[in-house]
């Protein structure tokens, strides 16, 4: 079976805008599922509300498209009731860190055995481009017309602090690395959190001088720095360019986990 056999071909092309990174993240996640050799009738995709959260609707398994912010709560329920199922959550930065922020930290604390893929486009894409908790300072959105003035959440660091067993961050440009990270996350018992920096050309790029899709992805790629390099530069007291974010594996450990198949 190949990854394309997990798609609901009759639903394609999907509704995402031209060049939206969400489609790439679905490709990589399905390639990881394929790598794991999971069966379709033992795999459940769960999501909340948002462009990112529409992803399970394009996949040929049973899925739950739940209320805004509550994907992790529903996914915890699925995992507790049926620990033999493989649970994968698709979520967005708004869904996960704004309205669903509390579920996020507690799912990490409980270390529920599932894989959470967050498509962090740093904006509320679906509702027209309002600022989210990850909108970087200075960025223009419909709710920050003079530039965001609040500091942004680092979702991956949040998951590390809250206790997830596996945490990694990549971008929608790094398709091979992302697929590998999602696969490792799926293999790790406990909660695996993979943050993906993705492009929302329509509601982020257009307002922030990144008009074309390649310009947007180039902006993301050029601000990504391997976590090993970042740590080395910081240890040496060297300056880190502004807007840099770390990519790579941030943690892999074996804290006690909930819902692990015996």
């Amino acid at each position, binding site marked *: 079976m190949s990854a394309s056999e997990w798609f609901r071909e009759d639903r394609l*092309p999907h509704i995402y805008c*031209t060049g939206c990174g*969400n489609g790439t993240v679905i490709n990589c996640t399905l390639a990881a599922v394929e790598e794991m050799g999971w069966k379709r009738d033992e795999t459940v995709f769960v999501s909340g509300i948002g462009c990112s959260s529409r992803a399970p609707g394009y996949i040929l398994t049973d899925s739950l498209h739940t209320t805004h912010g509550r994907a992790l709560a529903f996914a915890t329920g699925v995992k507790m009731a049926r620990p033999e199922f493989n649970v994968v959550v698709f979520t967005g930065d708004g869904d996960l860190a704004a309205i669903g922020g509390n579920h996020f930290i507690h799912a990490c604390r409980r270390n529920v055995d599932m894989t959470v893929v967050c498509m962090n486009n740093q904006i509320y894409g679906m509702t027209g481009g309002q600022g989210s908790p990850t909108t970087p300072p200075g960025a223009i959105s419909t709710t920050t017309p003079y530039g965001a003035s609040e500091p942004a959440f680092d979702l991956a660091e949040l998951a590390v602090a809250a206790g997830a067993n596996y945490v990694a961050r990549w971008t929608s440009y790094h*398709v091979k690395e992302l697929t590998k990270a999602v696969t490792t996350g799926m293999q790790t018992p406990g909660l695996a959190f993979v943050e993906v920096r993705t492009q929302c050309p329509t509601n982020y790029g257009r307002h922030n001088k990144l008009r074309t*899709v390649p310009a947007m*992805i180039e902006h993301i790629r050029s601000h990504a720095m391997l976590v090993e390099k970042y740590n080395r530069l910081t240890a040496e007291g060297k300056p880190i360019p502004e807007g840099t974010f770390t990519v790579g594996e941030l943690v892999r450990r074996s804290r006690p986990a909930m819902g692990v198949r015996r």
Partner: protein
Amino acid sequence: MKLVIDESRCKGCNLCVLVCPYGIFAEGTELNSRGIVSPVLDRPERCTNCRLQALYGRMLCGVCRMICPDQAIAWVEERPFEPHRVEVEF
């Protein structure tokens, strides 16, 4: 194997143009029937997948297909066999 873009899915984002190490995709210039400018292929037989996928029995490279947000890139069997010249670049 033959590289094809499914024009019923492609939305013309040009991400494939950005990632292919061989420069096989080039930005298109003409609107198709869906009102989209899909990329054009420049000597696709240079792609490692076209040449060696069947021999190795797995996907090689494949980054264009992975990054394509619209699942528009695929390799199809050539039938009947379509001969073409392969240029090896050093």
